[in-house]
């Protein structure tokens, strides 16, 4: 695309090479060139992201029966979703419980990935001095991201299963008599797999913020008599905050909408916000699925707005 654009944009003004381009193309205005360059990507987002989102909102207000969509206004998608919520008060209804559980998973995964991600990034940014080593080790952390998530989930089966390495190791060591059942297909394995898959999203932005920190600031803090801990709390963490916030947004939105990891690692037994949508789609209750998508979108948006108050994302990229 850009090739054609630039070719058209070629003004052909070079003296001496003018013979080759006797027919000078009319010069395109810079803003038109920008449109041609950015237009294709904009069209993809329009056709496959923005318009689909609009359809999700519209269909969430449609009616449905057992096997098809009925394009007539109805709030059924929402009322079905919140069925019994008022009647059961103060008890939480199903949807309330599901969201509470999703938020709990989200919080756990966020806290653990933040801890691991922060220290991994810290090590790479401040302790690895050679650029080559820094590149090599960052690459080592990135390569798994280029491989399949499902495979990285399945990979836990031989380790955590009833006859897996952990259980057989503990049994041999005489620490347990019966295999531990909650290692696999449980909330534990879901959190473990999510941390395993998505710590990367925390490491990269935090590392990016940290390498930009001027090393002389840290020396200045040291010279002024700050302890290592004081430097960490008063210099490094505030300056790494943009990375921390961006990483947190990634991890939280991924976990909020996840249904695959929770499905596979939870043995399809754990309810979550994303899984409700999948279940509704499989039952062909599309307006109800769309209504749930709108609710999930609203909650995700709320979380992001709260977090981006802390930092201006656009300035950090």
């Amino acid at each position, binding site marked *: 695309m850009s090739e054609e654009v630039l070719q058209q944009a070629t003004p052909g003004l070079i003296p001496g090479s003018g013979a080759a381009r006797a027919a000078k193309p009319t010069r395109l205005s810079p803003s038109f060139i920008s449109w041609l360059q950015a237009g294709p990507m904009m069209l993809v987002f329009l056709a496959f992201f923005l318009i689909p989102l609009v359809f999700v909102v519209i269909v969430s207000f449609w009616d449905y029966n057992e096997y098809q969509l009925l394009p007539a206004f109805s709030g059924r998608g929402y009322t079905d979703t919140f069925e019994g919520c008022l009647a059961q008060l103060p008890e939480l209804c199903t949807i309330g419980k599901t969201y509470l559980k999703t938020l709990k998973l989200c919080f756990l995964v966020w806290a653990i990935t933040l801890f691991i991600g922060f220290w991994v990034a810290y090590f790479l940014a401040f302790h690895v001095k050679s650029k080559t080593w820094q590149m090599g080790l960052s690459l080592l952390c990135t390569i798994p991201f280029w491989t399949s998530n499902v495979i990285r989930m399945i990979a836990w089966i031989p380790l955590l299963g009833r006859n897996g*390495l952990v259980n057989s190791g503990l049994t041999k060591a005489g620490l347990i008599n019966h295999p531990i059942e909650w290692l696999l297909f449980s909330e534990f394995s879901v959190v473990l797999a999510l941390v395993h898959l998505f710590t990367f999203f925390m490491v990269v932005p935090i590392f990016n913020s940290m390498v930009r920190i001027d090393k002389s600031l840290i020396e200045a803090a040291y010279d002024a008599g700050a302890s290592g801990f004081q430097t960490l709390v008063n210099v490094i963490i505030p300056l790494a905050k943009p990375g921390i916030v961006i990483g947190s947004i990634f991890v939280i939105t991924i976990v909020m909408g996840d249904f695959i990891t929770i499905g596979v690692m939870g043995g399809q037994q754990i309810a979550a916000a994303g899984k409700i949508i999948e279940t509704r789609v499989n039952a062909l209750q599309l307006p109800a699925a769309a209504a749930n998508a709108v609710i999930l979108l609203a909650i995700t948006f709320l979380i992001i707005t709260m977090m981006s108050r802390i930092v201006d994302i656009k300035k950090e990229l």
Partner: protein
Amino acid sequence: MREGRPRSFYVLAIFFAAYVLFLYGPMIAIYVLSFQGPQGGLTFPMNGVSTFWIAKLFQGTGIVDLGAAFRRSLLLGLVVMVLTVVLSVAAGMAFRRKFKAQSILFYSAIASLIVPSIITSLGISLEFRIIDDLIKAHWNENFETSMGLLTSGLGAHLTWTLPFGLLIMFAIFNRFDPRLEEAARDLGATPWQTFRYVVLPIILPSVIGIGLFGFTLSWDELARSSQAIGAVNTLPLDLQGLTTTVTNPDIYALGTVISAVSFTMIALALGTIHMLNKRQAAKGSNAGKGLV
């Protein structure tokens, strides 16, 4: 006296090593287990060593029609890779000047990255369902569906790969020295010549990186494909389908084969990037030599 490393270095080095082990350990376990003997089970210890399960996969007598899904995923991955590279480089160039819809495009890309995949996927499937209904109602009653690998599936994958491509382009141009272009212009290069012989050779290693992201993210994509791919399955979808009924190591064998493709692509891309960087270091930038 030499100044040693602080104690925190060793603590964090061990922490980092543990993290890397945590990342790779389980993956390596299943690569090893896919070479189980024919009588082998899902866990250690190994019951002999063989290529039985991998061979079974390729005979097509196994669990899925590997060949067809493999070709579909590969085709989609390559198309996504090419489109991601071309669209990202073009849009990245546009962002170097101010233009009107700049912030709309920027926020669309960021939103596309962080809106949960299941929502995008559902939206695309609704969109295509409605298009299908319109076609059936107005033009052709026998129309089946416009959903498919290279329509809705391709679009779904692009909403995932393009934001990465665009962000990498931002990173590239953040440390790009615009004086190089000015110099080219002063020497009489046309905008196209400036791009082709100056800008592109310099950014080429990173552009290959975008291609790597484009292919691998598509090759392993699952959440967005789930509702939007239409009637056919890609490899990761087949693999996910198998997780509910795991009984023997052929699922590991499939995992190993899929990973082998990923690793081949990673090695190819990193090798090329390394070669280009070395050449740039040796000869200066090869800008102007028209090597591309």
